[in-house]
């Protein structure tokens, strides 16, 4: 990877982390409405995958834990923050909230409040890309929990049958709410389900940006060239609860260990500074810029207007 690409990847991961850490502390103040599911800890996945995608021809669909995917797909961070605060300046004018951030102009087909909601949509985005013939691909992100949903499983099959330019990213963070993936995923391996539906499957270390990046490169390449779909199981750890407010009594000490020993940002930094590709100063500068961006995003979101009665019944239909 070129320096520029590395810097961009680092900036993306750092932005996600900062965004989520900040939401965590803001949520505690009671200012943030609704259910918020944080992606902190999982940054290398969204970033490593989306590094291969462009805004115009490639589409992703996300989950309830969607902030990281949105940021990695270049959705405007300030608009995202404003959306989470329910403001008119939000990505969805405040109508969607955390679970429904979307930006079709960036090929971001939405976070999704329904577990398993995204994979069928991605089959359609992939079909559209295929018929358009410009080499576009479509990527569905889902969790270990989502890998048990019939909609997801059907989509794996349809993608093979239609030979779609699709990539399925199963983010296995070990839990669906409080339920362990080791318990809920019959057979134990999500990646192994790929074979059952006729596509290649593999497992990668989700703390390792480079491992994700490389696995995704291969899958995206195959899709772009008409080689059909791939399933990648990314193994990672979420740093916070299922949603903000979760007491997490079902967990052991895995988060502390992951933060200390495996963290994707730390690992990235160690590697690129260790081999002399980038300097600590370059990364520190990004850290500072990102911190400012998130500060500004929160401040601007809080200052932005809330929607009013005039907005309540608009945008249900294009024409009715």
């Amino acid at each position, binding site marked *: 990877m070129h320096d520029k690409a590395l810097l961009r990847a680092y900036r993306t991961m750092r932005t996600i982390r900062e965004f989520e850490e900040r939401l965590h502390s803001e949520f505690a103040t009671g200012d943030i409405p609704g259910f918020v599911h944080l992606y902190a800890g999982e940054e290398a996945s969204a970033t490593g995958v989306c590094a291969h995608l462009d805004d115009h021809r490639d589409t992703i669909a996300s989950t309830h834990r969607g902030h990281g995917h949105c940021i990695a797909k270049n959705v405007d961070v300030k608009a995202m923050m404003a959306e989470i605060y329910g403001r008119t300046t939000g990505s969805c004018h405040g109508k969607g909230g955390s679970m429904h951030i979307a930006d079709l102009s960036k090929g971001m087909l939405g976070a999704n409040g329904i577990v398993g909601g995204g994979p069928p949509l991605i089959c359609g985005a992939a079909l559209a890309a295929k018929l358009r013939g410009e080499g576009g691909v479509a990527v569905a992100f889902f969790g270990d929990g989502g890998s048990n949903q019939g909609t997801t499983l059907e*989509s794996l099959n349809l993608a093979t049958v239609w030979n779609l330019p699709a990539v399925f990213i199963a983010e296995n963070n070990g839990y669906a709410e409080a339920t362990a993936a080791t318990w809920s995923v019959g057979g134990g391996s999500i990646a192994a389900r790929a074979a059952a539906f006729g596509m290649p499957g593999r497992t990668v270390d989700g703390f390792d940006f480079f491992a994700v990046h490389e696995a995704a490169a291969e899958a995206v390449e195959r899709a772009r060239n008409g080689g059909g779909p791939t399933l990648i199981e990314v193994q990672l750890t979420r740093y916070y609860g299922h949603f903000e407010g979760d007491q997490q009594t079902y967990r052991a000490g895995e988060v502390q260990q992951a933060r200390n020993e495996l963290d994707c940002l730390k690992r990235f930094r160690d590697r690129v500074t260790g081999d002399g590709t980038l300097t600590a100063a370059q990364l520190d500068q990004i850290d500072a810029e990102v911190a400012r961006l998130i500060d500004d995003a929160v401040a601007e979101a809080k200052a932005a207007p809330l929607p009013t009665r005039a907005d309540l019944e608009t945008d249900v239909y294009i024409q009715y």
Partner: protein
Amino acid sequence: MARSISYREAINEALAQEMERDPAVVVLGEDNAGGAGAPGEDDAWGGVLGVTKGLYHRFPDRVLDTPISESAFIGAAVGAATRGLRPVAELMFIDFMGVCFDQIFNQAAKFRYMFGGKAVTPVVIRAMYGAGLRAAAQHSQAMYPVFTSVPGLKVVLPSSAYEAKGLMIQAIRDDDPVIFCEHKAMYDTVGEVPQESYTIPFGEANVVREGGDATVVALGRMVSVAEEAADELAQAGVQCEIVDPRTTSPLDADTILESVEQTGRLVVVDEAGPRCGLAADISALVAREAFGALQAPIGTVTAPHTPVPFSPSLEDLYIPDAQQVAAAVKSVVDWKR
């Protein structure tokens, strides 16, 4: 030029003309061509009752068979619609909505609102509804009230071959998600249909017949049942005004209300059930907006609150018929305080 063709052919022609006109239109569903991977004929089925027959040979890249995975392929149609295609997906029997409703009501219907007005999802979902083919409880339902209740969906119920063609072309060109409900007992019903392409706008009811004594709002196949009843009533000196809403969402409230303002009496005839259905919906509209004009209770003729029975003897009793409609009209016309 108008010729007599069937309801089935009218829909097929609408699909063909729109596919011809717009390369973004794709057709997909189980056996919509038919025979995928099989050794025999291509386009072997053209849909289970032959509605899409012949399209595959004209547009081989744009007619797709699917595995039996309604969530995946209806969802794919929805996703494709957000990315520039105009898919027409077939759910086959509307009763199958239970295995894929999420993609319709939580995804397609809500994108535009949830995404702050930035999504465009021009998907058409074709589905066969209705009783009469002895297809029993899971293949005979009239589920359009459920879709009508969902903000963000449009729901179409063509009552003749002419209506079917014009409404289908409108559905395909429409930028909102549309549930297009085809009564499977009407596929062989023949009517005058122009060869040329034409659209029938949504939300504009058709006054099928004028009359001053009572308004009869009838939906889908019930339009012809209402006409039969009206013929009978006319002989007894009662003149019905028959209104066919054509689309239940949007609903042309104005035409219904104007008619009731003149007749003072209303009967709603629907093949769906009595609870939270269209008969209730339209009754409520009138009881709220045209109460001052009402001179009698609002009559409703619907299927009973039961699953659709299999046995022909019961199914015939299940479906509202002209006698029931005539009796309901007589009863509101004869009503005295």
